């Protein structure tokens, strides 16, 4: 395919660059129907289509390159857009109106749009090209950094701006001892003022990063062509295995320079208000463009605006006069977990302006609002707590409805702030990435609809909280069709009214139409779990037996063919050779499939329901007890081998893991609970991916909470540091009971913590500082659990009545279920599903 395909009736638009702005431009063309009447060719240097560069760092928290893609599946095909990956434009012949790509293909254009973006600026210091020097711009850069970091222990980032701190966070996340070297006297010099920079510095140093401000890089020291350190302008030398340059970006304007387009003195393709270059057939948008106000915009929102402008111009909508004359430089970011926002006149450059400042260096919070003589809000800086950004930014230029002091004071201090999204005018821009007003959002009824119809909330995401508050409240937060209360409300009702049965709760607090009914498969196990958390008796006696999911009912996990798996508890993953032999013998004697689980224990599959008591008799006799793999309860506390054996260990992690697993075993909770204890900062037990994770320090234990693996991984947050054994246990007691009390059904600690109003700070207030005066009660509840715990399997085996349910057929107690069949695979068994499927053909 090449240039000769073009005809007079189908004009060709060539887009050079497929980054975020390029993709936005394509969407804007499609929205206007231009893709139907023009051939669109896109030349992209990178090997993958446009992705979310703003969220690049989230690659290190588990996002895959596919997650970051900005291109909806089928978009290019649907609109007939030709995308050439890994084939950048090499030259432009403006006279002939052709672009030549690296592959040698030549494309004729009627309109050319340059969206080449920017390149990282690498200061010209000796050694900058050594092995171990990187920039931080593309997914490929990230992959290279990740690979190199495997053999490194220390990393340094040159540049303490926005991207530099992102890069530093990534290195820290890769387990490196991390340094940040910034030439300016403070971090993020462009966005925040001195006070904000100082708050940021303290918080970041507290996370264990070393920050060197007011310091330049003079040389990258190398040995055998690889980085070994850096020489700094203050004469000091820093040992490091790798260097990431993140000292700003420069517009990529070489292609424009080479073909004679006007460029700015300090770079950038000069454009007018319609983003047209000195050649009327050529446009430039995004970070490569020097806008008509003389600035190069390095943020995505102005780039999107330029993309819209050019698309409108091409679609002949120029008449509306909405050109690009400059943009709002407001930003809100989460850097290394710290909120940083700046908006409007953040540095107070307006003549006669005044500051209102709140600064709390203990908690690393700094807030400054810039106000003019008439009380109008001009701008501000928020560090450490940027919750109000979504409201304050749209208020810029107007007199806020409450005083500036109230706006900067933290919630709970002084008068309550009565400022909600309802205070915003209709034309307030809520989403600045996509320029969406409050009015436009008001037309929608759900967040999903807002995102689909207006794109609001799909850029940086900082406005999502405000959007949620603007939407009509979800009308029914009830647990299910039987209860209009949430799980945590039902927990409080059952606790305070001392309700001990499902029937009583349904008939007194169920929806009117559900009273006297059966309940359902959602509320029965939920209430069963609440009653078990509160009352702690044997979960299968009396009415409770009818509430449990089948797994709890048979104290085993049902597998796809109706057979069960059996998991004995192996606390901390520590097991004697004799214990291993017993498990092996049981599995062999009952013909079970065995597999080691991720939680450091052994799962035995393929037991028929009537075999469970015999299997457990053997296990209980050998000292094993239920592992609660079937319950919404504590699963395992993993551990590394710890100080006892490991040369790096600083505490006995195995002993602590066993202590914790035995303490919390059997505890019924809104969802399963996982934990781990690592004996040193190397974190071999992966504690930060657990609901509560413990990492040993030289002085005690650090407690992390709210971590998760699975489909939506989340790193746990540090709740408290350097705890003694007793302090650690007390804090976990409080944390778990507070979670059990307030979480929704099937809500893991990670989502619960994300949802908890006030987040980690609130959690700390409640469980560390006892701000609600709840801690005594939470500890007492846990003490009752620990005192009353009994092994469910031992209890079951002791009671012939309880054993009666373990039959395949009530009318033939000895008969095995003939439909549960197995076939061999890799010297073990597997379910014979062909048998189940064949049998099934008859019943449709």
């Amino acid at each position, binding site marked *: 395919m090449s240039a000769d395909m073009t005809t007079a009736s189908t004009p060709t638009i060539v887009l050079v660059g497929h980054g975020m702005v390029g993709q936005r431009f394509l969407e804007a063309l499609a929205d206007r129907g231009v893709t139907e009447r023009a051939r669109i060719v896109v030349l992209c240097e990178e090997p993958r289509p446009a992705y979310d560069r703003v969220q690049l760092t989230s690659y290190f928290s588990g996002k895959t390159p596919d997650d970051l893609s900005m291109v909806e599946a089928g978009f290019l095909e649907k609109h007939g857009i030709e995308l050439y990956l890994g084939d950048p434009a090499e030259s432009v012949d403006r006279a002939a109106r052709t672009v030549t790509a690296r592959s040698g293909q030549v494309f004729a254009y009627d309109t050319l749009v340059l969206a080449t973006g920017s390149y990282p600026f690498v200061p010209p210091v000796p050694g900058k090209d050594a092995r171990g020097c990187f920039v931080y711009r593309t997914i490929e850069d990230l992959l290279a950094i990740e690979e190199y970091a495997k053999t490194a222990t220390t990393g340094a980032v040159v540049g303490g701006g926005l991207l530099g701190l992102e890069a530093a966070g990534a290195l820290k996340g890769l387990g490196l001892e991390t340094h940040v070297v910034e030439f300016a006297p403070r971090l993020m010099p462009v966005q925040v003022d001195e006070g904000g920079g100082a708050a940021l510095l303290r918080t970041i140093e507290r996370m264990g990063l070393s920050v060197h401000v007011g310091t330049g890089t003079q040389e990258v020291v190398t040995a055998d062509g690889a980085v070994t350190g850096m020489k700094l302008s203050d004469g000091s030398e820093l040992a490091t295995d790798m260097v990431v340059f993140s000292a700003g970006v420069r517009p990529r304007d070489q292609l424009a320079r080479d073909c004679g387009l006007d460029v700015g003195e300090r770079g950038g393709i000069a454009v007018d208000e319609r983003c047209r270059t000195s050649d009327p057939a050529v446009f430039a948008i995004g970070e490569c463009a020097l806008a008509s106000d003389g600035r190069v915009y390095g943020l995505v929102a102005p780039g999107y605006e330029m993309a819209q402008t050019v698309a409108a111009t091409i679609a002949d909508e120029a008449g509306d006069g909405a050109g690009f004359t400059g943009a709002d430089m407001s930003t809100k970011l989460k850097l290394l977990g710290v909120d940083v926002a700046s908006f409007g006149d953040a540095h107070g450059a307006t003549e006669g302006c005044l500051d209102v400042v709140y600064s709390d260096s203990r908690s690393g919070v700094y807030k400054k609002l810039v106000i003019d003589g008439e009380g109008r809000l001009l701008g501000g800086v928020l560090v450490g707590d940027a919750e109000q950004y979504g409201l304050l930014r749209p208020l810029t230029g107007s007199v806020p409805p409450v005083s500036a002091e109230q706006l900067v004071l933290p919630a709970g201090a002084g008068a309550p702030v009565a400022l909600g999204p309802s205070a915003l005018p209709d034309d307030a821009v809520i989403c600045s990435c996509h320029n969406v007003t409050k009015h436009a959002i008001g037309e929608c009824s759900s967040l999903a609809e807002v995102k689909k119809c207006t794109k609001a909330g799909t850029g940086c995401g900082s406005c999502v909280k405000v959007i949620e508050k603007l939407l009509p409240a979800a009308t029914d937060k009830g647990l299910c069709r039987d209860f209009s209360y949430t799980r945590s409300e039902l927990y409080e009702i059952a606790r305070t009214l001392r309700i001990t049965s499902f029937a009583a709760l349904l008939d007194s607090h169920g929806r009117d139409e559900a009273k006297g009914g059966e309940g359902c498969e959602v509320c029965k196990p939920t209430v069963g779990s609440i009653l078990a958390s509160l009352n702690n008796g044997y979960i299968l006696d009396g009415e409770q037996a009818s509430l449990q999911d089948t797994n709890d009912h048979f104290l085993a996990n049902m597998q796809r063919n109706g057979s069960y798996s059996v998991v004995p508890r192996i606390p901390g993953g520590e097991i004697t050779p004799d214990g291993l032999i017993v498990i092996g013998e049981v599995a062999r004697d009952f013909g079970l499939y065995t597999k080691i689980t991720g939680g450091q224990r052994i799962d035995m599959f393929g037991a028929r329901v009537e075999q469970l008591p015999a299997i457990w008799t053997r296990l209980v006799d050998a000292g094993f007890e239920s592992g609660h793999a079937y319950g919404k309860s504590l699963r395992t506390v993993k551990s590394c081998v710890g100080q006892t054996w490991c040369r790096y260990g600083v505490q006995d992690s195995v002993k602590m893991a066993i202590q914790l697993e035995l303490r919390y075993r059997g505890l019924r909770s809104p969802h399963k609970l996982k934990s781990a204890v690592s004996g040193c900062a190397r974190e071999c037990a992966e504690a930060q991916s657990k609901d509560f994770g413990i990492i040993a320090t030289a002085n005690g234990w650090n407690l992390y909470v709210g971590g998760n693996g699975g489909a939506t991984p989340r790193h746990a947050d540090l709740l408290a540091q350097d705890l003694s054994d007793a302090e650690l246990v007390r804090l976990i007691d409080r944390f778990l009971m507070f979670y059990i009390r307030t979480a929704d059904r099937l809500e893991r600690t990670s989502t619960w913590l994300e949802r908890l109003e006030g987040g980690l700070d609130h959690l700390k207030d409640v469980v560390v500082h006892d701000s609600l005066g709840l801690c005594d009660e939470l500890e007492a509840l846990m003490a009752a659990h620990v005192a009353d715990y009994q092994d469910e399997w031992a209890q079951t085996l002791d009671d012939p009545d309880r054993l009666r349910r373990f039959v395949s057929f009530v*009318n033939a107690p000895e008969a095995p279920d003939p*439909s549960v069949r197995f076939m061999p695979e890799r010297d073990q068994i597997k379910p014979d599903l062909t048998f189940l499927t064949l049998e099934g053909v008859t019943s449709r």
Partner: protein
Amino acid sequence: MTTLTSTTLTTTMLELSPSPDSWMTVCEESRLTPGRGVAALLPDGRQAAVFRDRAGRMYAIDNRDPFTGAQVLSRGLIGSVDGRPFVASPLLKQRFDLETGRCLDDDEVTVAVYPVRSI
């Protein structure tokens, strides 16, 4: 608090009709926990899932979960919606009306229903 007594003076038996005009004994009615089910093996090798609700009413449907082929419906949780009883499969949670056998989550799917009586 009331407790269920496991011995009663007169024993009520639960019977099921696996095919027209024939009845078989399943078990004593007291074996069924209200809100739960048991499985019964029928003379021809089929399996029935027999349930008892809070009000003491009995139901029987085929034990086979048509979505997975596994004989497990007797181990599901029962509930009610608009006054009609259902069981939710313990595997993938599809619900089946206990009176008609109709799947509430897929119009195309139905399981067999067996008449039951107490003697």
